[in-house]
């Protein structure tokens, strides 16, 4: 059944697959919010170069309001939209099942509603609490309600995707779930388990407290619930990139996914051990026993394993593709990879940045080494090459085929797209060097240091501060290039859905067979409950102790 695109392209574009439009709206809305967040980034980078530009930005009341916008929009809002769109769309196309569109559009508008509430709170300077919003700093109720709605609507998208998968399983008893659906559903299951911390924190503690229904809040209990979600949320950002690295990048390189069983094992491991690790963000907190901190530290090292497996598998699939095309030598094969393709290049550079990001993550996870870098500029240095590059640059790469795929409009100026990719990678690498370095010199994260006399920090940190400032300018150029490509692609007049690029599903070299083990890990519900038991086992002793000895303090608005 084909639809002529000539007669009335706009009306008929989405008839065959109306879920294309859904995915497009999620992805583009996410990119719009990212544009706002990214626009504030250079001012942040200049602050860490000792240059204060906030006095020239009349729409921002303070550095901290700008930082709240930057963090919330980039890390929380953009990622949630992009991932929601991608991770419901891919399974629905792989399984050939259409989600219930009425409900799907309801969740989209619910998400928008939540973000608008939070945006009002932030833009009016009512909630300059940063994206960690630790009480007793007390933001506006709109902020917490908006944040809760953002999370809840993403969970509804997840449940809907799992519903599609359950329907497929009913009709295909005894078969293993197709690989992309498996990866997406494992990610959603992990996110459901992970998000419970922030849902409980906002719904039961912060919303009633900010509305004045309760007089105090326990800061340590809130922090602990926040980090229950706050660490595994990074896997919610990272795993969709892994989906693409495993399932799409090999095809884009001209090769195949090497091992389906190992890919499935990787995602099963992430579902099991992503969540019981949040205490490694609280090594410096009093009121939590060192024993449980060390237990969660050990589990953090366990969750490094599936990433190590990924590094091997993905690199091997690229080498396999390159050698099949005649690449030779120990490293010479790298040259024959399709470096002219922006989508491919973006994702390989994202992988490279994650090698450094992962190594830094091991430092952060080590309770002893963490003492040196905790809450210093090292930390934003770290997460700009993880979520800021491994995830974001992968999403840029995905958008270069996804937007043409969804709209039927060809990518505008692929050469410029390639330039945006390289400048993002270089900019973030320079940023990371500058910020990690500043952190080692003891400069704190998220501090308005450009307003301080240079004797405090700047005199002893000229080189890293200069690097940070320069990186902000490189990234500004990159963002302009990227958004030029996105906007010109979306506003293109030519629309040809029939010849639009297909989803680059890779063929599989070694397929999974329904062995007992593979059938066992195909049961994501079972893995979810095992994961949940593990989470409760390592969190309940600390949480029960906090609930039994409440420490309620009043709220403060200090911005």
């Amino acid at each position, binding site marked *: 059944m084909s639809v002529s695109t000539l007669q009335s392209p706009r009306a008929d574009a989405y008839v065959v697959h109306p879920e294309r439009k859904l995915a497009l709206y999620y992805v583009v809305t996410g990119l719009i919010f990212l544009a706002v967040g990214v626009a504030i980034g250079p001012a942040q980078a200049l602050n860490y170069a000792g240059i204060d530009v906030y006095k020239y930005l009349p729409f921002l009341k303070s550095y901290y309001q700008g930082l709240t916008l930057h963090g919330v929009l980039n890390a929380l809002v953009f990622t949630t939209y992009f991932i929601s769109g991608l991770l419901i769309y891919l399974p629905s196309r792989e399984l050939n099942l259409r989600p219930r569109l009425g409900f799907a559009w309801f969740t989209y508008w619910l998400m928008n509603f939540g973000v608008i509430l939070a945006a009002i709170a932030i833009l009016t300077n009512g909630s300059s609490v940063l994206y960690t919003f630790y009480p007793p700093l007390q933001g506006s109720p709109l902020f917490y309600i908006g944040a809760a709605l953002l999370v809840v609507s993403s969970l509804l998208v997840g449940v809907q995707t799992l519903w599609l998968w359950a329907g497929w399983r009913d009709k295909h008893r005894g078969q293993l779930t197709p690989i992309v659906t498996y990866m997406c559903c494992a990610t959603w299951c992990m996110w459901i388990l992970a998000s419970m911390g922030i849902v409980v924190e906002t719904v039961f503690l912060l919303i009633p407290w900010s509305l004045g229904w309760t007089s105090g809040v326990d800061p340590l209990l809130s922090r602990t619930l926040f980090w229950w979600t706050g660490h595994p949320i990074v896997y919610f950002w990272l795993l969709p990139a892994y989906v693409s690295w495993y399932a799409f990048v090999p095809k884009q390189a001209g090769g195949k996914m090497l091992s389906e069983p190992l890919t499935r094992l990787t995602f099963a491991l992430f579902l099991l051990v992503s969540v019981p690790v949040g205490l490694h963000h609280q090594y410096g*907190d009093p*009121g939590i026993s060192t024993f449980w901190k060390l237990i969660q530290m050990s589990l953090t*090292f366990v969750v490094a394993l599936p990433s190590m*497996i990924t590094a091997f598998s993905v690199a091997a699939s690229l080498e396999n593709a390159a050698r099949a095309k005649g690449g030779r030598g120990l490293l010479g094969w790298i040259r024959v990879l399709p470096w002219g393709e922006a989508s491919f290049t973006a994702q390989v550079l994202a992988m490279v940045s994650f090698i450094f990001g992962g190594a830094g993550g091991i430092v952060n996870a080590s309770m002893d080494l963490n003492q040196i870098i905790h809450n210093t500029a090292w930390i934003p240095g770290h997460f700009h090459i993880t979520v800021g590059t491994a995830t974001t640059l992968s999403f840029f790469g995905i958008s270069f085929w996804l937007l043409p795929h969804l709209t039927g409009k060809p990518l505008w100026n692929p050469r410029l797209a390639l330039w945006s990719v390289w400048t993002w990678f270089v900019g973030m690498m320079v940023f990371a060097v500058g910020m990690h370095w500043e952190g080692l010199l003891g400069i704190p994260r998220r501090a308005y240091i450009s307003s301080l006399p240079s004797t405090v920090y700047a005199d002893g940190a000229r080189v890293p501060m200069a690097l940070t400032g320069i990186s902000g300018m490189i990234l500004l150029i990159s963002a302009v290039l990227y958004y030029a490509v996105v906007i010109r692609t979306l506003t293109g007049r030519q629309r040809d859905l029939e010849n639009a690029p297909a989803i680059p599903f890779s063929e599989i070299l070694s397929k999974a067979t329904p062995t007992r083990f593979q059938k066992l890990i195909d049961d994501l519900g079972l893995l979810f409950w095992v994961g949940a038991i593990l989470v409760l086992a390592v969190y309940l002793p600390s949480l029960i102790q906090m609930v039994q000895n409440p*420490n309620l303090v009043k709220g403060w608005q*200090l911005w």
Partner: protein
Amino acid sequence: MDLHTVERFERVWIGFAIVMALLMGLAATYNVVRAVVPTVRSSVGQHVDIKNLAATPFGKPELKRLGFQTYELYMVAHIFEFTPSEIKLKAGDSLEMHLTSADVIHGFQILGTTINVEVIPGEVATVAYRFKKPGIYMIVCNEYCGFGHHKMLARIVVTA
């Protein structure tokens, strides 16, 4: 490149990853348990009433000499300063610090050392350090606490 070769390399790689994770974990555990790197200690579940700090040792936040080269410090973090804001010690002195906050969460990092603690209202964080080298050690609030966060600094002056 056949699949079997890849799988053999893969097993080696995974083995390497497991050994490395194990070593990192053991090293960090050793350093924390044996206090090679001092980390925060606290009486879990016991709080001070921040509305009535005067009735606690934090009512007089100051340096106390306990014995030869041994000092104890009660320090209060509040917007946007530390009290006391300057501490004087001699090289070789050991200092046990007890910290709480009177309002929101603050950070407490002594630059040039491995002391890095969250200061949470109502919770008491205890951490010890021996200052071997003379110099001026800057104390930095490294947890966002409001509009004056970046100005929240104090210092420890260690003389020879």
